C-alpha cells in the first residue's frame, strides 16, 4: 500500500510543508502534493524574493545619502539583472532547503495537481494516475493575486504585472502605477522607487495601508512621499488599458476623473484562495467567496478533511499558515496544540518598515473598549539618531480597564524585527506593568517600545 498515508498535505507553501514536517515528527507517514515548486509562493514568489529585492533597493537608497555619514562614493549605480538574479538565487536556495527538509523527514513529495474524490473516511486524493489515501487530508493550497478582467486588471506578462511578473522584469520601468496600497503594492512601490522609477500608488480607500492604524498610515504616507512616491487615495479604478508604449489608467477620485499613463502597472488588489478544480464542491466543502470555511482546528466539516493557511481565509500571511498547520496536525494527533488565538503580527518591508499586532486604536474603540494609547517617536531615540533612522514611531494600545496590551503599531527602520516583542507580550497576556517593568537595552531602537508603554500611562521619560 505505497499510496496509503496517515496524512496527505496538498500544497507545499509555509502552511503545507511545515504541517508535513510536524506530522512526520509526530510519527505519521506523510505525503505532500505540489503542482509547481516546493515552498509555494512564499519562498519562490513572495515573502523571500521580495525581501532580497528590497534589500538591494534599500542599500542603493542608502548610497544616495552617504554624505550624511561622512562617506562618499564616486558614482552609485546598479545592474538590474544582477539584482533580479540575486533574488532568484535566494529563492532557489530556500527551495532547495525545503526539498532537503522533506527528505530529512521522509515525506513523500508528489508532483502534480491534486483532485479530491469521496473516499472511505477521508477523501481520496487523485494526482494524475495515482490514487492516494490517508486518514487525514490537509488542504494548504494557498492563494493567488486577485484580478478584475472586466476593467483590465489582469496581468499580461508584459506591461501589466502581478507580484509574479514584478519579481522578474527585464528592466526597471521609468514610470509605474501600482494599484493597491496594501503590503504587496507598497513593497513593490518602495523597491522600484528606490531604484529610481517614478511610482504612483492608487488606493481606493481614503488612506494607504488601510488595515494599519490610522496614525501609521499617515506617517507612512508622509515618509513614502518624502522618498518620492506619489499617491492617489480614495481613487476608484475605472479602466486599465494598454497604450503603444505602456498603460493608461482611468481613475476617479473625489468626483474628478483622471488618466494616468505609465510604462508599467502592478495590480495588487488583494488575493483569492485557490479553491477551484479540486472537487471541493462535490464533497460538500463549504466555501465562502474564495476561502474554505473551517472550524477552530481547521476542520472543514467533511470527515478527515482540513484546510489551513491562505485558502482558509485571512490574514494571508505565511506565519499564520504555519501556525494553523501545526495546530491542526497536533490536534489531529490528539495533543493539546498551542493557542490558535495568539495574535498574528503583520509586517510590511518598505522603507521605512511597518509592523503591527493586535487591535488598532479605532478597532479598540469600535469594540467598546476604552483604550489607553502611548506613542514614542524615533526622532528622540538615541540609537535612531545615531543611525540616522529617525522616521517613524511606536504606538501602543492598552485596554484601559485591565491594562492588557491589545495592540501595537510601528513605523520605522527594522521595526519588523521588533514587533515580536509585543506579540510575545500579548501571547503571554502581559499588562502595562509587565512591559514597563521589563528592562530594555540601551541604546536600542526598542527602547521606544518601552517608552510607548510608559507614555500610555503618563510615565514617558524622554519627551
Amino acid at each position, binding site marked *: 500500500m505505497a499510496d496509503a498515508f496517515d496524512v496527505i498535505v496538498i500544497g507545499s507553501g509555509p502552511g503545507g510543508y511545515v504541517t508535513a514536517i510536524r506530522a512526520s515528527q509526530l510519527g505519521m507517514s506523510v505525503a505532500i502534493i505540489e503542482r509547481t515548486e516546493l515552498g509555494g509562493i512564499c519562498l519562490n514568489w513572495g515573502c523571500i524574493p521580495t525581501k532580497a529585492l528590497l534589500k538591494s533597493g534599500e542599500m542603493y537608497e542608502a548610497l544616495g545619502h552617504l554624505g550624511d555619514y561622512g562617506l562618499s562614493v564616486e558614482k552609485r549605480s546598479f545592474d538590474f539583472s544582477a539584482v533580479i538574479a540575486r533574488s532568484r538565487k535566494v529563492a532557489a536556495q530556500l527551495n532547495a532547503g525545503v526539498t532537503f527538509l522533506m527528505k530529512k523527514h521522509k515525506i513523500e513529495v508528489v508532483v502534480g495537481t491534486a483532485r479530491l474524490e469521496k473516499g472511505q473516511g477521508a477523501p481520496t486524493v487523485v494526482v494524475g494516475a495515482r490514487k492516494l489515501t490517508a486518514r487525514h487530508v490537509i488542504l494548504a493550497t494557498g492563494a493567488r493575486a486577485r484580478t478584475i478582467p472586466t476593467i483590465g486588471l489582469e496581468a499580461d506578462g508584459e506591461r501589466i504585472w502581478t507580484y509574479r511578473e514584478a519579481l522578474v522584469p527585464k528592466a526597471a520601468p521609468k514610470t509605474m502605477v501600482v494599484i493597491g496600497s496594501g503590503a504587496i503594492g507598497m513593497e513593490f512601490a518602495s523597491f522600484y522607487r528606490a531604484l529610481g522609477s517614478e511610482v504612483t500608488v492608487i488606493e481606493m480607500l481614503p488612506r494607504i495601508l488601510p488595515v494599519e492604524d490610522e496614525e501609521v498610515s499617515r506617517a507612512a504616507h508622509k515618509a513614502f512621499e518624502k522618498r518620492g512616491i506619489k499617491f492617489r487615495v480614495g481613487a476608484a479604478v475605472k479602466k486599465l488599458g494598454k497604450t503603444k508604449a505602456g498603460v493608461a489608467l482611468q481613475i476617479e477620485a473625489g468626483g474628478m476623473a483622471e488618466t494616468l499613463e505609465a510604462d508599467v502597472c502592478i495590480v495588487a488588489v488583494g488575493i483569492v484562495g485557490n479553491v477551484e478544480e479540486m472537487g471541493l464542491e462535490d464533497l460538500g466543502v463549504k466555501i465562502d467567496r474564495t476561502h474554505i470555511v473551517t472550524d477552530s482546528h481547521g476542520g472543514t466539516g467533511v470527515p478527515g478533511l482540513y484546510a489551513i493557511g491562505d485558502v482558509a481565509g485571512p490574514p494571508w500571511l505565511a506565519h499564520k499558515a504555519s501556525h494553523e498547520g501545526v495546530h491542526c496536525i497536533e490536534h489531529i494527533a490528539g495533543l493539546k496544540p498551542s493557542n490558535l488565538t495568539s495574535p498574528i503580527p503583520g509586517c510590511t518591508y518598505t522603507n521605512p518598515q511597518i509592523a503591527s499586532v493586535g487591535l488598532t486604536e479605532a478597532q479598540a474603540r469600535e469594540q467598546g473598549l476604552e483604550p489607553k494609547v502611548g506613542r514614542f517617536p524615533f526622532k528622540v531615540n538615541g540609537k535612531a539618531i545615531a543611525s540616522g533612522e529617525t522616521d517613524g514611531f511606536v504606538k501602543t494600545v492598552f485596554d484601559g480597564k485591565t491594562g492588557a496590551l491589545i495592540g501595537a503599531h510601528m513605523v520605522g527602520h527594522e521595526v519588523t524585527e521588533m514587533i515580536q516583542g509585543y506579540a510575545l507580550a500579548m501571547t503571554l*497576556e502581559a499588562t502595562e506593568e509587565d512591559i514597563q517593568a521589563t528592562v530594555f537595552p540601551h541604546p536600542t531602537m526598542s527602547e521606544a517600545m518601552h517608552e510607548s508603554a510608559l507614555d500610555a500611562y503618563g510615565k514617558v521619560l524622554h519627551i
Partner: protein
Amino acid sequence: MTDILMPALSPTMEEGTLAKWHVKVGDTVSSGDVIAEIETDKATMEVEAVDEGVVEALLVAEGTEGVKVNATIARLAGEGGAAAPSPTPKTETPAAKAPEPVKAEAPKPAPPTPAPQSAAAPARAPEGDRIFASPLARRIAEQKGVDLGSVSGSGPHGRIIKADIEAARPGQTKAAAPSAAPVVSTPASTAPRQVQSLEQMGIAPGSYDLIPLDGMRKTVARRMTDSFRDVPHFPLSVDIELDELLAARTKINAMLEKQGVKVSVNDMVIKAAAVALMRVPEANASYTPEGIAMHHHADIAMAVAVPGGLITPIIRSAETKGLAQIATEAKDLAERARTRKLKPDEFQGGTFSVSNLGMFGIKSFASIINEPQGAILSVGAGEKRPVVRGNELAIATVMTVTLTCDHRVVDGATGARWLAAFKPLLEDPITLIV
C-alpha cells in the same frame, strides 16, 4: 512502547509531587519493581511498574510538584499498551525521625484534611504553591473577585489565562463538589497574606532559624486560615461527669484484655459522638452553596499529632462499630498516621471531628472547624472537680467538652441538642450499647 502515567493515589487525587525516581533511563524494569515515589500533602506512595521494559525516558523531573493524574511521567520501550501503575503505600517517612512519643489518643486541635477536590484541576499544587497565571488573568481575577486557586488553567502547562478567569464565577471557590463550604472571595483569599517581613517587624536576621514550609504545614496553614476566616463559628461547652464511664471502661478492658485490645476514653468519646450524630442528624451535615448535605453515616475524623503537623484519620460509620473495633481501628490509624503510611482515603472526607488534648491537662478549648464538616468536638482533661448534687458539694471526675459549630448548618439550638444527646451517653455509658 508503554507510557507510564501519574497514578491517582485516591479517587479524588488530581495532582501530586513526583518525589523521587528509583530508575534511570536505560534501566530494565519488570512488573512490580518500584520505579518512583509520589507524594501528596499527606502521604508518600511508591509506584510500581506494571509492564516490563527498558526505561526510555523520564519525562517529569524529580521534585516536580503539581503533576496531573494521568500525565505521562515516563516511557518504557517494550511491548504492551499504556497502563497506569498501581500505587502501593510506602513505608518511608520523609522526615525520617522516630515518631514522637505522643499517645494514640493524643490529638491536637484544628485538624486538616485535604480539601475535597473538584472535577476541575486547580492550577495550584496541593501544597498551596505558586499559582501559574498570566499577568492579565491575575488582574482580571482581582477585578472580578475570582480566587485564582479555584480556577483551572487551560494555558500552557496548566497556566491560568484570561479566558479561564472570564469563564469563572466571581466568588467561585476551590471545590465545586456539594461538600464544599463556600469561601467568600477576596483577592488574597488563598494566597498567603502579604505580611511584613520579620525584619520589618523588628526581629533581627540571624536571630532565628527558618524551617522551610513542607506540604503538611502549608496545608494546615491554608485550610485553617480559610476556615477560621470564612466559616462563622461559635463554641458551646458542657461539663460531663466521667466516673461511670471510667468504671465501665475498666470492666470493658478487663474483658478485652485477652484479645489485646484496650479501649481509651477517646474511643468511647468517638462512639458516643457517632451515636449522638445519629440522634441529631442536623449536626452531621455540611454547608454547600447548593444546599445542606445531610450525611448518612457518622465518619468521625480523629486528630492525631504527627511529626511536623497533624492528620485526621477517619473511623468510617462509627455508629455501626463496637468499642473494641473502634479502639483497634483508632490505634492502627494513629500508628500509621505517625509513619505517614495512611492512604488518602483514610484521612479524606470525614463528617465530624474529635480533637482531644486531655492528656496534656488542657481543661477546655475550641477547635477550628474542619471544612466541610459542620462541627468539631474538643475534649478536655478528665479531672476531679467539686460538683453540686442537690445542695451538697461532692467530688466527681469531670471533663469539659466544647463543640465548635459552623453556624451556617449548626445553629446554637442544634448544637445544644447534640450536646444534650452526647452528654448522657458518656455519663451513663450503658446507653452506648443500646
